[in-house]
């Protein structure tokens, strides 16, 4: 079998190589040659091609993402920043929390169940790798037209996959989003967030230090998963008649949540006994990524014996073993003296573990296959020195054709009632229980708040009641109208969501879902989004701890709406004091914040001919900061609180009423339809006891935020300026919508 060794590569400099098929450009291939001073072996070519891909190298986004670090505020809470598998923040009492969002959009379109399942699996391993016990997941989702048959194909499978994997891992699902828009039809978004907790001293990093330390691969065996592309290499390599063509490679990866669950328990036991120097999960680019990143983060030298990698499919070529994206695998650097104990713990959990190499004094990553040298590279050139592009950008042409919103504005009680019921029956606002009841929200016994509340709240210490809250948000329609403001507004909504439940914003993660970076208009949307998010985080004093970029989300020439999913994590000092959206009878209802009359990007506009409008709101960061401070200081007097976002005040009050089946009588002053249906940001609804009226008014004065009394809770209907809507009518409109579509 013709193994393309380093020697063979030197002796046959002109062997044509399928670098184009592997997605490398001419100049990229050329720079690989100049790095190595020869043509790459097919194994090296495999590694570079996958590590220099958009997904792994961020070659189109890098120069923009820089801002997240450059503009970043100095935050003492930040223990580990962008660049590691996930950022880590200090939440006090010796605890550190790590969280991150990742996308699995394309695989989930091809095979909804497995695509979504492996998406959850991947982000959970990122969190585990930091040394943390994963404690919760969230799943922001985007789909095409709910009426389209293909949405019926992808949605139930994606939801079942997220539940199937997350439930089996014992991770409570504490929130997410489901939003429908036609641009996601051929390109649904499956973003998954995981959060984990550890003690400061337990933080682990992906680094390979100390010559003589061992490289241990543990977890599932390696199969041909996710290496469709590289098969061309294999067939090149084995092209001589004597060799059999490799068997067909799977188009999709299948997740094994049970394998991941034992991998988690096994790893945590290994961490607890402090048995690893460094650790890295195997995700995209598999061993190519793990070995080159571990090596370049360490002293630099590493030897790997590829034939020792346990295989599920014996027909795999070395190139394929290097690129396999088989799930549920981890790679650890272990001191020889600790190997015995490491192996014992793996045995206890029935986890396969194999020493596949060691850290060396050298500076090269050397990989041999049955003794033959097939890879000899400076690891940094694979892991970090990939190409960087400053892609052309241009403001999209669609801005010239944006039209102002033209919608009916209800005034009479009958019109108001009809409007509210129509709004609450819209799939984007409909009750999500059909989905969220497929997710375990109780497991681990620390879930304080979850759907349908504004944020998920998890207790991390049962004695002190310390906890964290997380929310994920995006308003893609605003981002479409103004990506710079859209990103800011998403961050602010997320901050508001967690503050509403009682958490002080502490750190930010994000997942930037966009079309093709090779389209200058998309690239402009992306750049504006990053600039907006960086500016907003700077002003809000929040560090971005990590995130993910997903490009090429488009069908033909049609890109998805720019969709920056922003996740904000905050600390709740005492979770027993959290505020939920549920009211009791006899409480006074106040609307905090100014209302405007801009319907652009609103759900009310969208359900009238899918209008988007012509201009997004402009974020007032200084004011939002004051609002957040007001919300946090007001927690002791808030009996209930819910932010105002999608669906405006109408949706917020309706959700509060349905939460605990306590009605409300509301009287809105001024421009009724705008007060009711516009989605002016920077607002929340609160319910307080009458005795605290002065305290609330005082807060409003202190923070210069308008606070208006709009009604009183009680009864079994929601009455808005004379329009009487029984809770049963509300429920009838709001529930069963998704079940009817997808059940």
């Amino acid at each position, binding site marked *: 079998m013709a193994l393309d060794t380093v020697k063979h590569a030197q002796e046959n400099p002109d062997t044509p190589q399928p670098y184009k098929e592997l997605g490398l450009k001419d100049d990229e291939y050329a720079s690989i040659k100049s790095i190595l001073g020869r043509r790459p072996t097919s194994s090296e070519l495999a590694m570079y091609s996958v590590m220099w891909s958009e997904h792994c190298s961020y070659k189109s986004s890098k120069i923009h993402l820089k801002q997240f670090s450059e503009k970043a505020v100095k935050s003492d809470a930040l223990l580990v920043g962008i660049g590691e598998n996930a950022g880590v923040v200090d939440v006090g009492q010796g605890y550190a929390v790590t969280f991150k969002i990742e996308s699995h959009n394309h695989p989930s379109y091809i095979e909804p169940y497995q695509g979504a399942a492996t998406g959850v699996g991947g982000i959970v391993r990122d969190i585990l790798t930091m040394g943390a016990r994963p404690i919760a997941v969230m799943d922001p989702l985007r789909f095409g037209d709910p009426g389209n048959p293909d949405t019926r194909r992808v949605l139930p499978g994606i939801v079942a996959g997220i539940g199937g994997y997350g439930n089996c891992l014992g991770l409570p699902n504490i929130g997410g989003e489901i939003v429908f828009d036609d641009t996601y039809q051929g390109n649904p978004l499956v973003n998954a967030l995981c959060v984990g907790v550890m003690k400061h001293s337990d933080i682990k990093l992906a680094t390979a230090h100390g010559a003589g330390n061992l490289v241990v691969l543990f977890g599932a065996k390696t199969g041909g998963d996710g290496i469709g592309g590289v098969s061309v290499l294999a067939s090149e390599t084995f092209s001589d008649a004597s060799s059999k063509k490799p068997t067909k490679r799977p188009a999709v990866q299948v997740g094994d949540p049970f394998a991941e669950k034992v991998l988690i328990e096994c790893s945590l036991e290994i961490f607890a006994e402090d048995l690893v120097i460094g650790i890295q999960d195997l995700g995209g680019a598999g061993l190519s990524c793990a070995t080159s990143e571990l090596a370049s983060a360490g002293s630099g030298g590493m030897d790997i014996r590829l034939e020792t990698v346990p295989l599920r499919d014996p027909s795999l070529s070395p190139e394929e073993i290097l690129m396999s994206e088989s799930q549920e695998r981890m790679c650890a650097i272990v001191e020889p003296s600790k190997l015995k104990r490491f192996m014992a713990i793996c045995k206890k959990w029935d986890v396969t573990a194999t020493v596949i190499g060691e850290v060396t004094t050298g500076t090269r990553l050397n990989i041999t296959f049955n003794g033959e040298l097939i890879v000899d590279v400076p690891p940094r050139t694979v892991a970090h020195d990939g190409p960087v592009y400053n892609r052309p950008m241009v403001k999209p042409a669609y801005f010239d054709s944006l039209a102002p919103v033209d919608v009916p504005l209800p005034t009479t009680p009958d019109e108001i009632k009809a409007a509210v019921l129509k709004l609450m029956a819209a799939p984007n606002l409909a009750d999500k229980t059909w989905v969220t009841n497929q997710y375990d929200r*109780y497991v*681990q016994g620390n879930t304080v708040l979850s759907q349908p509340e504004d944020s998920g709240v998890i207790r991390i210490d049962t004695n002190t009641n310390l906890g964290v809250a997380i929310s994920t948000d995006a308003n893609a329609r605003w981002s479409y109208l103004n990506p710079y403001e859209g990103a800011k507004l998403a961050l602010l909504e997320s901050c508001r969501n967690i503050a509403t439940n009682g958490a002080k914003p502490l750190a930010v993660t994000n997942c930037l879902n966009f079309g093709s970076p090779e389209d200058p208009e998309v690239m402009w949307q992306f750049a504006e989004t990053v600039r907006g998010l960086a500016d907003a985080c700077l002003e809000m004093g929040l560090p971005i701890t990590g995130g993910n970029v997903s490009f090429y989300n488009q069908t033909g020439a049609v890109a998805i709406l720019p969709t920056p999913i922003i996740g904000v994590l905050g600390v709740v000092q005492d979770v027993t004091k959290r505020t939920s959206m549920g009211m009791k009878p006899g409480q006074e209802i106040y609307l905090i914040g100014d209302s405007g009359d801009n319907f652009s990007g609103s759900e009310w506009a969208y359900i009238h001919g899918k209008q988007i409008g012509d201009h997004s709101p402009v974020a007032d960061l200084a004011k939002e900061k004051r609002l957040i401070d007001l919300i946090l200081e007001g927690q002791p007097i808030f009996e209930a609180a819910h932010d105002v976002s999608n669906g405006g005040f109408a949706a917020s009050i309706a959700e509060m009423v349905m939460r605990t089946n306590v009605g409300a009588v509301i009287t809105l002053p001024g421009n009724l339809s705008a007060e009711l249906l516009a989605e002016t940001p920077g607002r929340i609804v609160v319910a307080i006891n009458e005795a605290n009226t002065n305290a609330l008014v005082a807060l409003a004065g202190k923070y210069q935020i308008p606070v208006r009394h709009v009604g009183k809770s009680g009864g079994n209907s929601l009455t808005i300026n004379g329009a009487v809507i029984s809770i049963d009518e509300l429920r009838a409109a709001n529930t069963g919508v998704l079940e009817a579509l997808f059940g």
Partner: protein
Amino acid sequence: MRIGVVTFPGSLDDRSALRAIELAGGIAVPLFHAHNDLKEVQAVILPGGFSYGDYLRCGAISRFSPIMESIILAAEHGFPVLGICNGFQILCESHLLPGALTRNADLHFICTDQRVAVENVSTPWTRGYTKGEEIVIPIKNGEGSFQCSDETLAELEDEGRIVLRYVGKNPNGSRNGIAGISNKRGNVVGVMPHPEQAIENLTGPSEDGLNFFASILKEMVSR
């Protein structure tokens, strides 16, 4: 009072069960599936989860764990055993309880706050409740539909061995709305709902589940 909780590969609610025992005032003893040593516990809980990923059939593989040999033997001599969700499934697979738990009627995993009635309060696990008392505790499973032969069903009903029954809409197609049963002797009880997830109002729908753990501890003292 020492009460054991078995961790199988893939158990998920084991730590919650241990905590529930402690909240109820007992000594919680973690047990591992691979050892047949019951560590002098006076009762044992098989917790919820997806042992062995629920592959093949829920509980089918765990049933053969070394610790189950000890538990099956002890149970036949009156040793109190409570199986919760996956634990219930393991008890059925072990034939310590009759019938089997099959795919939910709507084929979905269901997580919801469920109202159930405590019908048998003579088991060591339910003595703290009053007969017919209605409680709200979470169900969270994909295969919670109890099925058995007509004879078995009649026997269970006639002998009053239905421990918990769903109130209102049957969530998963269980025969006669069965949510939990006991063996003839009453020492072995299996329930699909999760009492260990209803021990604090802060994190559960109620505190209604705590009584399972209080009951067994009281029982142990009085022995």
